[in-house]
């Protein structure tokens, strides 16, 4: 079982450790990493069945970070859980690192699928969930998509496929931070009502405040109680959340920043 305060603390530490890691180089995909920190805090802080000492344990729950550019936030979660030393976070995006900007399952302990070309994690997560179902396993597959990412057609191919095959142990989220690289999603290619869309596609769909760890955890538990449909939880989030030089900024997808900005942001979070 999870404790709300522990999840909140874990999510805060993900933000801090990710910023420390970004800080070494002074650039990175800050916006999407910050908006995803709370869902990662919930999953890796208590919900997921994992064994950091045995990352390839076949009985584990799987996680696919389809918005692969948010990898650094996931690396922070993995390091905090002991998949690799905390010190290694400093190597993000440095030459020869095991922690590249986008997730690579063959490089980083605890990464279940390689991602980075948007939309593809939808299908690979579905494949993991469907494969486990064929094998008679009851472990869960968690999937994190972006709202901008959902402009990819492949997301909607998967949205049709998962209900067709009753993948009830697939729990997907959309980090709906309303922004993409070039601006606001509504100005570039409006996603419309994502909740209604996934309902129409046949998913068990909910929407919650994506920065409320208790609400997220409750939604996951609610989804697990039904056994007919894949689960989609729309997370209403803010891009750059919690990082004062990124939050509320238009171009915060990939940013450069000074050491002082980074130190100040970390101090405020702490």
């Amino acid at each position, binding site marked *: 079982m999870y404790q709300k305060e522990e999840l909140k603390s874990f999510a805060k530490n993900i933000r801090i450790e990710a910023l420390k890691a970004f800080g070494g180089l002074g650039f990175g995909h800050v916006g999407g990493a910050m908006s995803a920190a709370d869902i990662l805090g919930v999953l890796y802080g208590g919900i997921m069945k994992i064994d950091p000492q045995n990352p390839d344990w076949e009985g584990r729950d799987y996680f696919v970070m389809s918005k692969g550019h948010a990898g650094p936030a996931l690396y922070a979660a993995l390091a905090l859980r002991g998949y690799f030393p905390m010190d290694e976070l400093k190597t993000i995006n440095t030459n020869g690192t095991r922690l590249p900007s986008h997730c690579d399952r063959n490089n980083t302990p605890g990464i279940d699928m390689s991602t980075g070309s948007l939309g593809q994690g939808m*299908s690979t997560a579905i494949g993991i969930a469907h494969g486990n179902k064929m094998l008679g396993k009851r472990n869960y597959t968690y999937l994190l998509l972006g709202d901008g990412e959902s402009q990819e057609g492949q997301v909607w191919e998967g949205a049709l496929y998962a209900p067709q095959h009753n993948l009830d142990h697939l729990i997907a989220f959309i980090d709906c931070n309303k922004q993409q690289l070039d601006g606001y999603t509504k100005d570039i290619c409006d996603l419309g009502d994502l909740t209604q869309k996934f309902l129409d596609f046949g998913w068990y769909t909910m929407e919650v405040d994506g920065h409320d760890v208790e609400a997220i955890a409750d939604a996951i538990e609610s989804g697990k109680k039904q056994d007919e449909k894949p689960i989609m939880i729309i997370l209403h989030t803010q891009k750059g959340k919690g990082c004062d030089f990124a939050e509320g900024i238009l171009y915060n997808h990939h940013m450069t920043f000074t050491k002082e900005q980074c130190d100040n942001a970390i101090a405020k979070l702490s």
Partner: protein
Amino acid sequence: MSYKVCTGLETEKLAMRDVYAATMMDMASQNDKIVSLDCDLMNSVGMVKFAKEFPERTVNCGIMEANMIGVAAGMSAVGMIPYAHTFGCFATRRCLDQIFVSAAFAKANVRIIGSDPGVTAAFNGATHMPFEDIGSLRDIPGVTIIEPTDSVMLEDMIRQVEKKFGVFYIRLSRKNAIKIYEDGSTFEIGKSATIRTGRDVTIIASGICVAESVKAVEILDGQGIDAAILNMFTIKPIDREAIERAARETGAIVTAENHNIINGLGSAVAEVLAETYPVPMERIGVRDHFGEVGSMDYLLDKFGLSACSIAEKAAKAVQRKKSK
């Protein structure tokens, strides 16, 4: 590898697709990890019987090739052994990025069956006639590209890739092939298979162009040219040793493929020759054109893939060798 080449050229009684389906059913009955995926072309590739026999391991994705490749990659991450089929044009063009990222870069374990290569698409025409599928995939690290020649080789390849790990693209003609190998023949992926030896020129061919090459040898024989044939059924990784040896032994090379001459078998052979033992070389292949509708015989002539064209190029290569 242990194979015997048939004497004469006879059309096989069974269509390649029927042999594919029967082989898949036999393997699936012994290995519960095998899963068949398709994009609404199961009937076209003869897999409806498989679906009835193994419904729990059959996934008709619907018409969504990109999703199918990702699903196959994900399934392989939990230990399933996916065979994902659609027409070769769609199996490559429509999901190249998924093959690159979700399958190859992720080091997934996926077999992609691309049917109707090149002119074998016949009456489906240009949109369905892949002359570029090999070229699309050759650039992706670690992808193995195989073009079985007849049903004996097809069955051997389908069985062999079950036991291997990686991303495999199998270029499958669904039609009745011309029988090249005696039953029970086996092959080694990455090694060419010699159809015949010869002194003057080596024809390196794949797919339906192997049978055309056998016919070309008869024409060349009438001209006093003794041609060897190598069946280069693995386009990647290519058999570098065999290519260099052929160049040294015969001094002239002709490639023959049912594909664009750009970035296919001929390009792969030329790369090896350039780096090892350059000799006069001619290439048979589609010369950077889109396909069109027509019968196989018409299209073979139209795109210069027939035995006559191969014989002409072989004679030209020999002439170039002599005038060096």
